[in-house]
């Protein structure tokens, strides 16, 4: 077994320095569109044909609702784009409700237990959550741990458009968690239903089933965006806006 010890040691440290430093390695994030200012962008927004209606025309430019953006790149690949494409991964937002209540308190800042529930996630979100636990991102160094039981959990992390049979399972899991607790929805499916929308088979977002505190947009959100979301949940990082508006700070 000594070969494995040697193998581990010779690999060196591969872990990202985020959040202390920005991670600049290529390929850590797909990036996302940002609203562009001007009448032309406003006109293009109407014609952009965004398949999920994430892009709309604002007063003076385009506007993007990240709860619906699925990184299809259709808007950025036209000859008359209504958006700019930005790199980065700090995407997580806080819900209105979380701003007034549901604080976890500072005891949880460096010791947080997370229960993950798959509510119909496609595999890409699952893959990215698995990566958060792996050497490149290693959430243990931040005091974040996956827990096998909801009884120990402070955070319920949910991915997927919330399929019918998973709704009761989600409620049961949430009820089994002791207070204080927070709910983090990751991926556009958990925020709005994504490409699956809402209907008989899917609730179309976690908000219909549980009170959501932190929302991580992205399809899928890359591992660093998930880390950012968890850091927002324990107030170690400021939340970002869910909607990108042209002209002035977005909300």
């Amino acid at each position, binding site marked *: *077994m000594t070969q*494995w*010890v040697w*193998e*581990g040691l010779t*690999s060196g440290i*591969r872990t990202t320095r985020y959040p202390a430093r920005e991670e600049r390695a*290529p*390929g*850590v994030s*797909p*990036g996302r569109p940002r609203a562009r200012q001007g009448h032309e962008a406003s006109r293009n927004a109407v014609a952009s044909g965004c*398949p*999920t209606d994430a892009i709309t025309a604002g007063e003076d430019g385009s506007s993007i609702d990240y709860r619906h953006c*699925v*990184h*299809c*790149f*259709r808007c950025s*690949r036209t000859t008359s784009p209504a958006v700019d494409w930005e790199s980065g991964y700090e995407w997580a937002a806080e819900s209105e409700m979380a701003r007034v209540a549901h604080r976890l308190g500072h005891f949880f800042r460096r010791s947080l237990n997370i229960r*993950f*529930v*798959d*509510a*119909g*996630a*496609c*595999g*890409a*979100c*699952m*893959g990215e*959550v*698995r*990566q958060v636990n*792996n*050497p*490149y991102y290693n959430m243990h160094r931040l005091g974040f741990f*996956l827990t096998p039981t909801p009884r120990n959990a402070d955070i319920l992390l949910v991915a*997927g*458009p919330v*399929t*019918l*049979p*998973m*709704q*009761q*399972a989600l409620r*049961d899991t949430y009820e089994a968690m002791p207070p204080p607790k927070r709910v983090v929805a990751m991926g556009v499916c958990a925020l709005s239903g994504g*490409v*699956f*929308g*809402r*209907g*008989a*088979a899917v609730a179309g977002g976690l908000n219909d089933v549980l009170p959501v505190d932190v929302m991580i947009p992205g*399809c*899928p959100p*890359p*591992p660093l965006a998930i880390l950012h979301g968890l850091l927002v949940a324990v107030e170690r990082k400021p939340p970002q806006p869910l909607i990108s508006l042209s002209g002035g700070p977005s909300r």
Partner: protein
Amino acid sequence: MDESIAAPVSSPSAWAAFGDEIWQGRVRVEQVGSTNVLHCAVDKLAALCERLMSSGEHMFATLVVEDEGAQLLLTYVFYPVKGGAFTHVVIRQPISKLHVPSIAATVPAADWHEREAADLFGLAFDGHPRLGAFVLHDGWPESAQPMRREFDIHDRTSVPSRRDVPEPNRSLDAPGSFSMPVGPVFSDLAESAHFRIETLGEDVSRIAVRFFYKYRAVEKLAEGQPLDRVLLLAERFSGAAAFAHGLAFCQAVEDIAHVTVPARAMVLRAILAELERLRSHAATITGICNSTALAVATSQAAMIEEDLLRLSAFVTGHRYLFGMLTPGGLAIDLPDELCRQTAAQAEMIARHMARLHRLLRQSSSFLDRLEEVGATSSAAAALLGLVGPVARASGVARDIRALFPYAAYREYPPQVPIEMQGDGYARLRVFFREAAESAALMARLAARIPDGAVSLADIALCQGAALGAVEAPLGAAFHWVRLGADGRVLRYHITPPSFANWPGFQFAAEEFAFQDFPIILATFGLSNAECDR
């Protein structure tokens, strides 16, 4: 035995036999393009399917049910195991008479397909031992048949009220026996599914499964939608194999429109498909290392997977290759130099994988956990219609890339590795060998990329239906697409490899030690998102 029945059915002259007196004019043979379509009377269905399978030359691919209003159209798709033309057995049943004979007894691979169609269309397959409680869980309105025309999927009358406690249709009854329910919520990062493990002490006698916790009704959502929207669904119902499923959908559409994508797109598609296979296999290997709690190996494999995710994003902009495909080619062109860099990078990562494989082979404690675990015999794999790496680990070498070459695989045929033992270790070896071959294939493809456009300027859509067949990372994927006159999708049926292989898992997971359960699960590497759709 009658001569004509014993004759191999793949030879063209043999098809004439279906017109003769044995079938009493009840089977009509029609040639549609390269496909043999056998229009069959309902009472001859079972005999005809048995005849196709008995030659040992055909394999069941999928059952497509289409609601034509007054009647249901059932298409049983078979493919020759040595390549050639697909065979469709077609029957029609009026809405007033929704009874069809089950073929599951002679074609075990059709078992789950019939259960699915029974739930979604309200069809009764006479003779099938267990119908119902398959796709639809508690909470769906009584007698809901979501895939029937009149059902409105956007109607939110479904009520998730009761706790759905799955009851298997038979359970172990012996002194000291114990049933252990696992899921749908797991203790780690597993996908939602329910397993009922029936044990006598340390030994598990069998496992009953309840799936479709992740049923998002993708096929129903696609109906009436334009191609662009359906492509989003094809990519995102199983994000871990987004490119393969997107490609199967695009190929079906291109087949309907009778267009051939430019040579450059063919090669680039193959490069990206191999990149996805490489990454998916790295993820499966990570899962296998993790199931045996070999921490350093898990970390090493996970780093390889992340390297490949970053490489994918570096090349295409997206870590899971979303948004690259379009019917008629690719959405964006990739420079030749970038492709060569990518292939070189993939080969370097493949060398890391080879090193990991070597270290794992030297770890006897690891091999002990995998060897002779979850064994599937060659005969069982063929009978159950298993596909992909799982089938190839049991000596059944079916690879859509070799049987029905698409993209650039005709000019660049892949080497298909094969192992005979059929146990967990054989599956691990197949995953490693295929990953190495994918990297090598990428280098061969990137060495000579044809010039020219990467996409057709415009595709004239027409009415029609076609089957797109692709070797996804986990095995054969069949996408049936029917377009209406307005170019919108009328019917979309996805047969993912995980759907074909889960019955194989259930078969392999009999009579084993309790602690081997996660290992057998990991070596099959199956996805519930892909299976449930």
